[in-house]
């Protein structure tokens, strides 16, 4: 990255200030347009027919009656989509998840879709589609799915990572192993060994805005897609590949996004909407119901795990072992492997090993969910760490500090760490007033650490100086949490102009080069890097134009405080030129003034956090209330501290929901029992306390302002922190997430006996 990363620009002028976000007024007045808020002339209503069975062969689909219903303009099944069976497995699975081809693999799997003139007609049409299913035995639990006689989802999955390659297909996708040293020898050196098994249930990202899009395919093959997404460019590329279109013919415009958390990094109904529009020759709007969101879009894995930690009485961990079994939903991926990579990443252990087993089950295809896979493993690891600390009589923070990874530690996923932030977050936690605050009856305090890989990726930013000197900035990373404010700050900082002189928009896919998605905590990290790069190029042009106006060499022009200054004694009489003055003469000095940046923002650096939690357990009902919560995390540099705090608080709240209440409940019939917010209960305002945050700023050497991604790590520690707090509050150790009142009550009753 050819950027000045020496941080000589400190102290900043506007970076780090809490400015008002540019999209604020639109969002508080109802003007902001989200996925479902678009309208196109002649638009049709698109609806999807979904399998009521967890596992069924599709023998025949008869759409003839639906097609004849007046007002129905198109009916689509897998027969209308390309058959990718012989091609790339990933692409084929993506398409077959959008529309089942030969088998329905989970309750909610799409089997057909209609486009009709109105909702009423579309609903009627769905009822007229006759699907002839042969219901098959199903499996929804990862441990059950691994058994030799489990119902088989795919006949072409042969466990990867076993030599020789199995000849029999199974649900067992892959086994992988990470770690170093000799764990067996390490356990022999231990004074204390704690060995426990854990389970976590499946949770959904739970964004409040359901998936929605408006697709319009023209007879000439060009198409427009308005959609709520974390990555319009990736949606474009994927939809084009799935439907056999040229990428340039599909223009994707991202709406304002009503939350994503990873769930809007995958396509779901969008290819279907395009197929419907292509067939109907009309714009088609598809808006999912909440029921569809739960049944057919990306939850994260449920899991079953075994953890073993051995330690000496002085607090040195001699060996640590984890076996993690994650279900991936109905299509193969490697979610458990990411759990195995992250499980022990906070610690410096001589002997450490994690084994992952990925498995398919009859549930919706798992999608990324904020630091995907990490919170699950961290729950099991952090719960066990506390039990080891207790067994050797050591304070849990001191125990973690003693074993924390640091610069030079060989990480459990392989590489040796450079400078990292787990130690500082632990020290900050130890010294935080929260740690010393008194606790009431039935209350307990817990803490836990968390790790996540951040990344950067392909990024593209255009900075244009308008004729009046105000600045427009086009970025390609969707703003999910206030990034437009941070990016405007970066441009204002570089140019030396006021924040409100800069307007940032999220461009459509035909206006800018490819951008990766807003995921991996990369939105602000990578786009600010590109924005700084683009602005520095614009500043260079501004200097050149000032030199032309003054008729002096460009190296005698300096840029300072938003003005060109002529330097040297002979230019002492020249008044500085503002952006406005220079841009007013743009036409006569060489044309429009702009800066562009197309980069790969690689080298993001890993991220750590430590959380502290006070929980109160009601002995009568088993209900847990979070009384106080503190998040400590390194941001590198907080460009807009309010939105960094927002990421910390939001991640913690999602983790609290996961820990205490949220859970997919499947019936014996393999159908999801709680596909709604009444029974899938995410935290409400009265469930939570204020969430305190402490932002550490240890500059990231790979970013011009020292910024680190902050979006994801905050969801990693809560599950373990709360389990530890409950244990300290009620004297019961919960090994099964969520720690809902019935589970806690059961544990309390078992303890009494």
């Amino acid at each position, binding site marked *: 990255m050819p950027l000045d990363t020496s941080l000589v620009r400190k102290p900043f002028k506007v970076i780090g200030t809490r400015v008002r976000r540019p999209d604020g007024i639109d969002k508080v007045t109802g003007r902001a347009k989200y996925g479902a808020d678009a309208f196109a002339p002649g638009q049709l209503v698109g609806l999807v027919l979904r399998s009521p069975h967890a596992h069924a062969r599709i023998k025949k689909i008869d759409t003839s009656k639906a097609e004849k219903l007046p007002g129905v303009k198109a009916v689509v099944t897998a027969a209308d989509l390309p058959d990718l069976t012989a091609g790339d497995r*990933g692409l084929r699975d993506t398409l077959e998840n959008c529309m089942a081809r030969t088998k329905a693999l989970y309750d909610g799997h799409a089997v057909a879709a209609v486009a009709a003139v109105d909702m009423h007609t579309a609903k009627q049409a769905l009822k007229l589609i006759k699907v002839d299913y042969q219901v098959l035995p199903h499996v929804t639990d990862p441990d059950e799915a691994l058994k030799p006689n489990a119902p088989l989802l795919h006949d072409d999955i042969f466990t*990867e*990572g076993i*030599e020789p390659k199995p000849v029999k297909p199974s649900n067992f996708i*892959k086994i*992988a*192993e*990470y770690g170093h040293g000799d764990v067996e020898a390490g356990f022999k050196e231990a004074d204390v060994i704690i060995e426990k098994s854990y389970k976590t249930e499946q949770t959904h*990202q739970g964004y409040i805005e359901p998936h929605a899009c408006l697709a319009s395919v023209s007879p000439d093959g060009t198409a427009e897609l308005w959609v709520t997404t974390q990555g319009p460019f990736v949606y474009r590329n994927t939809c084009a590949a799935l439907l056999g279109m040229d990428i340039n013919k599909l223009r994707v415009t991202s709406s304002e996004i009503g939350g994503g*958390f*990873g769930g809007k*990094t995958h396509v779901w109904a969008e290819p279907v909407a395009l197929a419907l529009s292509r067939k109907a020759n009309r714009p088609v709007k598809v808006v999912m119901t909440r029921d569809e969101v739960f049944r057919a879009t990306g939850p994260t894995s449920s899991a079953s795990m075994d953890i073993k930690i051995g330690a000496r009485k002085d607090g040195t961990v001699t060996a640590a072992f984890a076996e993690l079994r994650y279900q991936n939903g109905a299509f193969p991926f*490697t979610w458990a*492997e*990411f759990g195995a*990579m992250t499980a022990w990443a906070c610690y410096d252990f001589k002997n450490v090993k994690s084994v992952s087993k990925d498995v398919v089950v009859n549930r919706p295809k798992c999608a*990324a*969910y*904020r*630091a*995907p896979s990490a919170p699950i493993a961290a729950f099991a690891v952090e719960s066990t760490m506390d039990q080891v600390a207790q067994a050797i009589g050591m304070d849990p923070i001191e125990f973690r500090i003693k074993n924390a990874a640091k610069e030079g530690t060989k*990480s459990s*996923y*392989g*590489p*040796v*760490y*450079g400078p*990292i932030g787990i130690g500082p977050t632990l020290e900050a936690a130890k010294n935080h007033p929260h740690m010393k605050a008194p606790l009431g009856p039935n209350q307990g305090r817990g803490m836990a650490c968390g790790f996540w*890989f*951040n*990344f*950067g*990726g*392909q990024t593209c930013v255009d900075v244009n100086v308008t004729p009046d000197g105000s600045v427009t900035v086009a970025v390609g990373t969707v703003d999910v949490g206030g990034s437009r404010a941070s990016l405007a700050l970066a441009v204002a900082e570089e140019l030396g102009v006021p924040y409100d002189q800069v307007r940032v928009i999220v461009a459509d896919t035909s206006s800018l080069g490819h951008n990766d*998605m807003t*995921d*991996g*905590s*990369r939105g602000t990290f990578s786009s600010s890097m590109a924005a700084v790069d683009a602005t520095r190029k614009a500043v260079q042009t501004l200097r050149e134009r000032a030199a032309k106006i003054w008729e002096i060499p460009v190296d005698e022009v300096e840029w300072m405080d938003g003005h060109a200054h002529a330097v040297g004694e002979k230019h002492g009489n020249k008044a500085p030129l503002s952006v406005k003055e220079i841009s007013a003469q743009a036409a006569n000095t060489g044309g429009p003034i702009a800066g562009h940046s197309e980069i*790969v923002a*690689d*080298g*993001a*650096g*890993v991220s750590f956090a430590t959380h502290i939690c006070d929980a109160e357990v009601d002995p009568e009902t088993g209900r847990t209330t979070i009384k106080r919560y503190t998040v400590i995390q390194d941001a590198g540099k907080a460009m807009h501290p309010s939105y960094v705090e927002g990421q910390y608080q939001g991640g913690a709240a999602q983790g609290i929901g996961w820990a205490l209440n949220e859970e997919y409940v499947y019936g014996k019939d393999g159908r999801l029992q709680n596909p709604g917010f009444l029974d899938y209960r995410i935290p409400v305002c009265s469930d939570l306390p204020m969430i305190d945050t402490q932002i550490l700023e240890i500059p990231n050497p*790979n970013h011009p302002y020292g910024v680190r991604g902050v*979006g*994801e790590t905050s969801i990693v520690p809560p599950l373990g922190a709360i389990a530890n707090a409950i244990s300290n509050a009620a004297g019961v150790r919960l090994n099964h997430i969520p720690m809902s009142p019935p589970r806690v009550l059961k544990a309390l009753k078992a303890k009494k006996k």
Partner: protein
Amino acid sequence: MSNVSTHIHTVHLWGALRPLVGGKESVTSSARTIRELFRFLAENYPGVEAHIRRGVAVSIDGRIYRDQWDTELPAGAEIYLMPRIPGG
């Protein structure tokens, strides 16, 4: 060519790649960039290329690179290949 020897790296591999290099935990390479390293692996170890297509990240002294194949592998650096991780 005198300084080639200083550019010999031990390239550590994650588990999935090890069977493709005869069960070893690492291979040695004189590659100077990620691109050279990937070419070296693809030419010498059939099967690795499929992984590279699927996505391989390279940790250089603990910092993870996913896309920038021109990134240099400094002499003496610790090189670790890892699967490419998705985000949320």
